[in-house]
């Protein structure tokens, strides 16, 4: 469904993303793992259109969207859940969700939007309890749930998830990832960027190991979990095997 070919992107002269190709189909979660600064977040932003692409191709269902501006890619179903959540802190949970459905206007969409809102509340009941509360007053986990919920309101086909576990307690991470599993099983495609490679590879179907802006290794998630190099470098498995 979503296909990224030979993407080159970066903020300054040096390309942070230096020719990465990634593909994800409906109902599939793929993950990008790698050290800090390997270019994973930059890649997600480039796929979302938030930063310019210098070379390469981004397409969804065969439609080239490489030169489509960020806000219109949302309409095509490519929706970013940004790192640090980027919620609208002063606005209520409800308003944040409404903004997620910003492009879905007209009487025909109203019903679908209302259903999606209920779906988000079904997925994250705590958001329903806090729907009138300002987003900035939520806990970190609740904010991450809201960021995912807001993205769900755009009727996405592919979610680009940037570090959804960052700074959260293990129990909350568990809740969020089981919600992601539900969404994936409902047919959503997902590209997940995670520091916690073990967590990511456990939930994803396939994985890409990114090193200095390129894909160093790719394959089914279980294989990467068992790969000695990956275990050693990204999973911190040294202590487990030797200790």
């Amino acid at each position, binding site marked *: 469904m979503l296909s990224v070919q030979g993407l080159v992107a970066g903020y300054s002269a040096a390309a942070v993303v230096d020719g990465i190709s990634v593909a994800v189909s409906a109902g599939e979660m793929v993950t990008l793992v790698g050290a800090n600064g390997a270019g994973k977040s930059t890649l997600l932003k480039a796929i*979302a*259109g*938030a930063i310019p692409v210098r070379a390469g191709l981004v397409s969804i269902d065969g439609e080239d969207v490489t030169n489509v*501006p*960020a*806000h*219109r890619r*949302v*309409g095509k179903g490519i*929706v*970013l*859940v*940004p790192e640090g*959540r*980027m*919620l*609208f*802190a*002063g*606005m209520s949970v*409800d*308003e944040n969700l*409404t*903004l*997620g459905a*910003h*492009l879905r*206007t007209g009487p025909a969409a109203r019903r679908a939007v209302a259903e999606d809102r209920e779906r988000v509340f079904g997925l994250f009941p705590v958001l329903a309890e806090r729907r009138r509360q300002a987003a900035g007053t939520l806990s970190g986990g609740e904010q991450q749930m809201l960021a995912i919920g*807001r*993205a769900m309101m*755009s009727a996405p086909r592919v979610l680009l998830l940037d570090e959804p576990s960052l700074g959260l307690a293990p129990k909350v991470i568990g809740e969020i990832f089981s919600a992601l599993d539900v969404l994936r099983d409902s047919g959503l495609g997902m590209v997940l960027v995670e520091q916690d490679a073990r967590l990511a590879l456990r939930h994803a179907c396939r994985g890409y190991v990114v090193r200095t802006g390129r894909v160093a290794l790719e394959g089914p998630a279980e294989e990467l979990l068992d790969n000695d190099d990956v275990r050693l470098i990204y999973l911190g498995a040294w202590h487990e095997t030797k200790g």
Partner: protein
Amino acid sequence: MGRRHPTRSRVMAHAGLVAGIVLLALPLVLGDLYLVRIFTLVGINLVMVTGLSLLFGYAGQISLGHAAFFGLGAYTSGFLTRLGWPWVAGLLAGVLVAAAGGLLLALPSLRLKGHYLAMATLGFGEIALFFFTEAESLTGGSDGLREIPAAAIGGFSFDTPTLKYALVWATAALVLLLAANVVRLRPGRALRAIHGSELGAQACGIDTVRIKTQVFVISAGLAGLAGVLYAHYIGFVSPSTFTLNLSLILVAMVALGGMGSLSGAVAGTVLLTLLPYADAIIPGLSRDTVAFLQDWESDIHGLVLILVMLFMPGGIAGLGRQLAVRLRRTSRTAEGGAS
């Protein structure tokens, strides 16, 4: 849901509207010409601050150059009507020139944020001031433009203080009503979203570049409209009106009222515009006090800005909200105690 339960912002908007109507009627009821004159100035400032509130208070884009747009409107309309153009044509031209100035500034400024945007808009204001002072054939230089005719529609001239007052406030009410509708609905949410997080707004499918350009142009156009009203109210414009000082006062009005609150901006505008004329509102105020307020006006504005930023970041609207929350809490505890 907003339909069944009036939201807090809607209640605030209604409160602002009621306050506006009371303000509107007050000087006429009292029949005091001094009051009428002062409140005409309040109305002119309201038009301008409404525009700045959309840009700065809602979208979070600061402008330290709004005096320039005010001036562009005032000079354009003043110049053209002196040539014999009808007032309505001067009005349209003034608004258009100011809006075009806004577009001119918006395009290079879209990439700028925070301090950089402040510097760029400040620079624009200074360039405009230089232009007002130096382009003597158009602006009359530092002597300004004199004998600008009063506003007139068809054969009807708004040439008495009360008529001028009515014209200004009818315009202000219309502008406020339109703005209140804009901020309550989808475009207002988009503005506030851009203020909250531009990346987040983009991720919601909001065209941040387009919306920022639009709000810049609208805001400049409203300042231009205020400038037109001003020129034909006073009948005289000169560069000393359109200084950085004015731009700063406007920012202070929005900040004092509270970011992202139109009714707050109205309150901030009324308070700060009336400040040097406190004697007209509060009877029996000593002459010394009034002289002090007038001499130290700019300093008081600066101080207000600092104090608001430090202790009252939500402004007057924020205080109102806090009060509402506290009242609700007390009433809830009271209910809890009774049952």
